[in-house]
């Protein structure tokens, strides 16, 4: 769907800007463009681990970035999250989970344990995220090279789920982990091709929010969460 272009009074036109660029380059419109430089794996790839080594690499990189990684199984992940919530005395929890089976299971457990649940798929407003102590999401992908988790916006996942609640818990399956950022774009291309991502907003999160603006002293939890937990389900 193409955007209807509003009349442009304050700026210049597309043609005017591009004409100036072409003049500076000495190029003709319609001239063919050579291929962009090849990105050699041998130079740019930093991780090519597989299997258990891949999981271990992700765990280490995530921990180095300041996230807390909890290993779990299909049977134990709910209890792991329960313990986390207990440890923080969390009474209000937000749920932004796309995977239906995960979402249903978690909602059920949260209500069982007497917690107030704000489920984004039921109440799709990010306002509700401001009043919870913990936000739980699942992820689109994870990257072992940097220890990053990737979330894409959707009907069930708010764009702000990873950044408004002061504690973020991300549920990741080991099968979602990709070795290197290079692999991420191949699996979830931004533009063109059959793998094109349709989400309007994607975010790679690598650790808790931080700053060192005041005298170079590192402080976490500036605007985004001060704690990021990854519950890593082995499957």
């Amino acid at each position: 769907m193409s955007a209807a272009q509003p009349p442009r009074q304050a700026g210049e036109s597309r043609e005017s800007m591009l004409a100036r660029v072409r003049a500076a380059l000495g190029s003709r419109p319609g001239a063919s463009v050579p291929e962009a430089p090849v990105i050699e794996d041998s130079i740019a790839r930093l991780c090519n681990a597989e299997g258990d080594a891949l999981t271990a690499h992700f765990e280490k990189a995530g921990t180095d970035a300041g996230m807390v990684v909890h290993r779990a199984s299909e049977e134990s992940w709910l209890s792991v999250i329960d313990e986390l919530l207990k440890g923080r005395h969390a009474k209000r929890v937000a749920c932004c989970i796309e995977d239906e089976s995960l979402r249903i299971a978690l909602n059920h457990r949260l209500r069982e344990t007497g917690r107030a649940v704000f489920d984004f798929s039921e109440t799709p407003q990010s306002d509700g995220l401001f009043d919870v102590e913990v936000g739980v999401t699942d992820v689109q992908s994870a990257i072992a090279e940097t220890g990053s988790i990737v979330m894409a916006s959707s009907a069930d996942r708010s764009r702000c789920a990873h950044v408004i609640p002061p504690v973020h818990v991300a549920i990741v399956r080991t099968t979602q982990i990709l070795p290197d950022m290079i692999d991420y774009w191949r699996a979830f291309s931004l533009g063109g091709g059959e793998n094109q991502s349709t989400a309007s907003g994607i975010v790679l999160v690598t650790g808790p929010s931080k700053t060192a603006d005041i005298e170079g002293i590192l402080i976490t939890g500036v605007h985004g969460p001060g704690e990021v937990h990854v519950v890593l389900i082995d499957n």
Partner: protein
Amino acid sequence: MTSHTPQTEPEHLLDPKLPYDMSPRADRAAGDVQLQQFVNSATRGRNQGRQDVCSTAFGANYDAMRSLAGSIKQHALDHLDVYLDRFIDCAEARGTHVHYAMDDAQARNICLEIARRHNATLCVKSKSMVTEEVHLLGALQSAGIETIETDLGEFIIQLDGDAPSHIVAPMIHKDRVSVAKAFVRELDAEYTEDPRSLTMIARAHMREKFRQANLGISGANFLVADSGSVVICTNEGNADLSISRPPVHIVMVGIEKIVPRDEDLSVFLKLLARSATAQSITVYTTIINGPRLAEEHDGPEHVHVILVDNGRTTLLSPETRELLRCIRCGACLNACPVYRKVGGGHAYGAVYSGPIGATITPLLKGIENYPDLPQASSLCGACREACPVDIDIPRQLVALRATQVQRRIGPRGARLAMRLWAKTLVSRRRYEISSRLMRFVLRRFASRDSHNSPQRWVGRLPGSLGGWTEHRDFPAPAARPFRAWWRKRSSKGDKS
């Protein structure tokens, strides 16, 4: 610390009277002991950190990575018209509105027009150098739109009527006491000097603004041509909060930020944070593909990208094109011995400081307006080794100096001295005569070194040469020149 009164307009710090003479601010910064400690430890730490993490991550491939990144950026610039076209088509296909600003006035006006059209009253803004470049903040506030800088460093600078002194770490020159005082004065907060408490005060204040804002403004680190995507890298999460809740998101970005493919992000994201802050990647890497989709429940309804020229097409000419590769990582600032000495005092007199600022400011604003900047370098090349996109900054500085000579810019005395020097050096005879004269004069005014060695020192040179001897002695030449010693040795064949 750098002293300034709250009445000092931030505009003047980065927009001084022209032609700009950097000596007063440079002298003041060099003499400020506490500023020196702050800036030195911050820049040295980051520079060493960059070298450590890049060596660990890339090993022997570090230079190859920088070269690859540089070649991708150069390719994008060499075909900027094609990639701009592609970016615009892809962005518009996804519902993004694209606007074109030839200069800073147009950039401000486009932004104001969008803000007015959407009845914006409260704007939250994440850090963007190009918005500083076009003086956006003042324009929004004059139009009655309350605008909050949400990056902690920029927030404090805004509160205190100050100006950023570093591309990546804007308040490298400020201490916690000035922050504490600003918070008491402007936020009615309890006085505390504890950095964590200060940060939490700022967080609480800004959280309310994030809840209520109806306009979000950001810059962009990269634009992906193949998909019309905007990429924003932050550590605090303030960009995500600024742009995801308000119904309108405006991205202001220079046209040089385009990269061709999403896979190129692999190369740049692996280099950007490592070069800037010695992290493997920033905490948040946010990719905006367009406004919210029909099935999504949050995110902006309107995304506007303002492409800004403001002199970049001038830099596109072949000799200076590589300067547009810059990804604003600040690595050159952290490596530069000159920046380390004077950068904290806003001595570069413009939005972009350090080695990159010293090259692009004279080109964008006129060499005659910033005659000191190309000279403020020892050409040590540290910046060139640090640059993740392989920009040859020393070569650009020398080219600027050549232009200054051609256009006769600079003090007449210095130009005359250089002409005389050139005339002397082309003739061996003139060289020998003049050096004999220099030797005689200097040795006459030199005093013997206290350790009774044959080396003599001149404690005080006369006139404007006295600038050298203000802080150190000038070595007097030896009694006999090397060539005389060599001639004697060769003719006699002795080994003395």
